[in-house]
């Protein structure tokens, strides 16, 4: 018989867990000892390590920065982005590559919405291996590869993780839109072939995203959909802090005529 036969004992048992520390968990209030110069603990919005196979979703205000760190070199952050005020506006991956005339997002790139606005920009990027083409794994693809892809199993798929994260902001199956995979890269061959570059990479590569609108971000950290290895994914660290709204003279804003007009459209929304 368990020693937890009465509520008092059950309460003591539950409360005795307080203070447990594991690798993949949120830190509340957020705390980080490796913030960039000029950023203080007062500015912190979010500090969480997302489990291998896990997910997270978060609303972040315009101007905030999100630093993602691939802690052990094998994270794959499948990312959805929504306008928090009107989530029918969301990342449009086709417009993102077409408008910028560039298949490979990297430092200075924008993630564009389907309303011609910039949701997020890549303020810093020392990874430069990202993927706008292959999207999220799903129950069917994980079933083929791992024998199972369910959320409740050992090999959860990215689409169902994104669906859970989106659902926590009131969104549903119609809202899990084409995503971008961060930290795992692909290149496109002359014949259209997809050439994956999936690592594992050096530990600690990082990316700083700047929210150009009030956004909802949903992140799944599951193996890349075309990763041929046995289940391989490692934890992903997310740290966000408040920051200034992009200035008119910002070099990313003014880099190309298309990017400038995306910022003009965004600024028009907040006028």
């Amino acid at each position: 018989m368990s020693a937890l036969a009465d509520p008092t004992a059950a309460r003591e048992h539950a409360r005795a867990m307080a203070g447990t520390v594991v690798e993949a968990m949120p830190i509340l209030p957020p705390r980080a000892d490796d913030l960039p110069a000029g950023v203080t603990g007062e500015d912190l919005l979010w500090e969480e390590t997302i489990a291998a196979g896990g997910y997270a979703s978060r609303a972040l205000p315009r101007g905030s920065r999100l630093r993602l760190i691939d802690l052990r070199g094998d994270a794959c952050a499948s990312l959805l982005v929504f306008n928090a005020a009107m989530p029918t506006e969301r990342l449009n991956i086709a417009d993102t590559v077409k408008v910028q005339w560039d298949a490979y997002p990297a430092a200075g790139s924008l993630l564009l919405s389907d309303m011609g606005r910039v949701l997020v920009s890549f303020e810093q990027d020392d990874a430069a291996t990202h993927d706008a083409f292959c999207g999220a794994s799903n129950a069917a693809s994980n079933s083929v590869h791992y024998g199972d892809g369910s959320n409740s199993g050992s090999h959860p798929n990215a689409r169902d993780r994104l669906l859970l994260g989106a659902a926590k902001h009131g969104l549903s199956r119609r809202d899990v839109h084409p995503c971008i995979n961060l930290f795992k890269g692909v290149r496109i061959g002359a014949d259209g072939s997809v050439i994956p570059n999936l690592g594992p990479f050096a530990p600690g590569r990082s990316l700083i995203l700047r929210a150009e609108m009030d956004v909802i971000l949903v992140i799944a950290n599951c193996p890349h959909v075309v990763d041929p290895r046995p289940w391989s994914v490692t934890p992903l660290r997310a740290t966000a802090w408040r920051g200034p709204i992009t200035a008119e003279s910002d070099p990313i804003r003014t880099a190309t005529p298309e990017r400038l007009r995306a910022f003009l459209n965004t600024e028009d929304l907040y006028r």
Partner: protein
Amino acid sequence: MEQTAHLDGLPGRVIHDEMVPARAPWLHRVKAGETLRVVDVEGNQAVDFLLYATADDAERFSAQDTIAAQANIFLRTGSTLLSNEGRPMMTIVATSVDYHDMIGGACSCESNSLRYGHHTKSQHACVDNFLEANLRDGRGKRDIVSNVNFFMNVPVEADGTLGIVDGISAPGLTVDLRAEMDVTVVVSNCPQINNPCNGFNPTPVRMIVAA
């Protein structure tokens, strides 16, 4: 125009045959086993194309799933268009064009403002066509995802530069799609006039269903 030539090689009996005017939307349900032929009547006319599972339209064409599964961004004969849940929706059983696009997406008034300038705001655009067709069928903006562009050419250069360039289609070329499930086909006969996807001149396309 050689109307009958467009029917050559179609399996079975023609059950639907419709000319979609230049710049217009089109919605049609195709049942499992039927074949849809899209005819580029006058040549180099982009046909923006979305699919929904008729039984459950939250399941829809996914360019990303299709690209990942075939490890290639182009659609060719033999390509299977997959849904966002990884199921086959339609298979390209034949096409007389080398390849079709899955990465260029649909033009919109909003993306036109980025690509060409705000002076294009009042021009026709594919997303408006997708919206018009979908709204009448109970769907809305969040149901619009990355689409196929039949007869459109979007190469990716070695340095990552990509763009819509001169077409590789020609008058009378076709693509035949066999439905693997009951699907709702939503098309925008692309009205774009600012890039070569329609040869700067939108033209009609013909939609033929055989069973």
